[in-house]
């Protein structure tokens, strides 16, 4: 089959690789009909996530048609249309039973690697380095889906691929980021980053009843999407010297947002002069893996007693974490890879009811074979790119 493989920093290629086979009884094989490039794939593409290996198939957002099932899978049959959640979860361990699917205790067969980095192993993830299991990803024609009796979301109506594809990751991820904010009605929420996850965090905050939702980005076309499609009430386009913290206070009567969502992660692009240079140098020399402007600003901007929701992906270590502000302002931080299985049914219902049409983020649709160009377009935000869908 054809698959998108990582072949070194800033390089992916579409190559012929063997077709996946059923390896365990609870596996299924899915023929992929749509798959997407995620902002977090760029962290791998750029070489900032350790344990990515030449030849690894990338991609953790995919859907398609079941073609084969193992003996232990009775809920699916060949021909079923499914969206596959990006974390692989067994459904049996203590974490899965408590809906902490992205922390599944069994699905990562490289626990020894993960324990070295993080102290504990977290769930296996498709196409997302060997730290999360070394599973082949879904930017390909077929994928093997372990624990297929637990994960895949069956799509049983005529919604298009693009309307349901993002149940695999970015819609539930954005939703979890908003849910972390404990919105009960009337809050001000600031969302750092108006990429695809940021768009869904904004839309979800609106859905949950926030009164003011402020989108922060450096690209006007993304901020326009945030207002016109996702429902943001205010925007901040940060210029080189603009202080996001001051602007956020200005927009909230000096209080600061009740909760802030970091939908940026480890490769923040803005920053303040010297500190930004410091981060760039440290990250380039691999002595700091995470550039943390967005998270630092989120902490400084958040109102005392507020919540910092971190759904942007971080991979290692960050310098100059503002512990003083964090502690003295009595903030609460909530983080994590999304427990997609927890939200899938509820969000699928929202799509079916017409409360939201997640396809609004899609700006580019291309064939799998041009994935290398699509990575470049997405990375450099060319052609007003927000989200790329690949068609195998």
């Amino acid at each position, binding site marked *: 089959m054809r698959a998108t493989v990582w072949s070194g920093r800033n390089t992916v290629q579409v190559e012929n690789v063997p077709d996946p086979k059923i390896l365990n009884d609870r596996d299924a094989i899915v023929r992929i009909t749509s798959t997407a490039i995620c902002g977090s794939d760029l962290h791998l593409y750029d070489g900032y996530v350790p344990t990515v290996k030449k030849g690894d198939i990338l991609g953790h957002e995919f859907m398609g048609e079941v073609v084969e099932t193992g003996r232990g899978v009775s809920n699916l049959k060949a021909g079923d249309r499914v969206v596959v959640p990006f974390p692989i979860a067994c459904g049996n361990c*203590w974490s899965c039973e408590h809906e902490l699917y992205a922390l599944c205790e069994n699905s990562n067969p490289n626990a020894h690697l993960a324990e070295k980095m993080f102290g504990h192993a977290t769930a296996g993830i498709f196409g997302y380095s060997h730290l999360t299991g070394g599973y082949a990803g879904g930017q390909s024609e077929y994928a093997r889906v372990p624990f297929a009796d637990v994960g895949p979301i069956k799509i049983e109506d005529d919604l298009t691929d693009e309307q349901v594809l993002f149940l695999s990751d970015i819609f539930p991820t954005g939703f979890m980021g908003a849910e972390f904010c404990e919105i009960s009605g009337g809050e001000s929420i600031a969302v750092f980053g108006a990429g695809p996850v940021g768009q869904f965090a904004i839309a979800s905050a609106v859905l949950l009843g926030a009164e003011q939702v402020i989108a922060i980005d450096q690209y006007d076309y993304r901020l326009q999407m945030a207002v016109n499609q996702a429902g943001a009430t205010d925007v901040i386009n940060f210029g080189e010297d603009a202080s996001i913290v001051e602007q956020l206070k200005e927009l909230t009567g000096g209080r600061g947002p009740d909760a802030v969502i970091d939908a940026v992660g480890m490769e923040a692009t803005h920053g303040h002069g010297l500190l930004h240079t410091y981060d760039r140098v440290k990250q380039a020399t691999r002595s700091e893996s995470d550039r943390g402007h967005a998270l630092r600003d989120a902490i400084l901007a958040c109102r005392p007693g507020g919540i910092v929701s971190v759904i942007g992906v971080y991979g290692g270590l960050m310098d100059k974490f503002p512990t003083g502000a964090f502690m003295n302002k009595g903030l609460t931080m909530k983080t994590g890879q999304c427990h997609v299985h927890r939200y899938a049914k509820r969000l699928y219902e929202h799509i079916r009811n017409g409360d939201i049409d997640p396809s609004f983020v899609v700006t580019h649709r291309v064939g799998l074979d041009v994935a290398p160009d699509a990575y470049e377009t997405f990375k450099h935000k060319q052609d007003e790119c927000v989200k790329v869908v690949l068609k195998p």
Partner: protein
Amino acid sequence: MKAAITVHKPRDEVRRLWSTSGYRPDYIEDSDASVEFKDAPGDRGTEIYVDIGDPTGGRLGAVVRGLFGGAALPKVKDDLRRFKQHVETGEIPRSDGSPEGERAERKLKQRPAQPLEQSELEKAAVR
């Protein structure tokens, strides 16, 4: 020094499976290491402790090193994780990078994360 893991099943079931062929953690059991089973707090299941002695030295440490070879702790941990996986999920999860499932030897020798060739499938004892 002890290696430990928690299995999300009641103690009598965990004890029974521990000595059932197919589940039995051969590396640990063949070493005569002392193994202890305890009820975990709340709804968490059963804690298993394997005493691997003092791997840094001393007489007991030397005995343990003799029993376990050079890489005692990683191999004990593999056994514990595979036992937990098997008991909780009914299978040993395999990835493309680690097709045999959790193995300390794979730490530095990951396969690329892409599907296996036919010859590799046989080697990894699939089907």
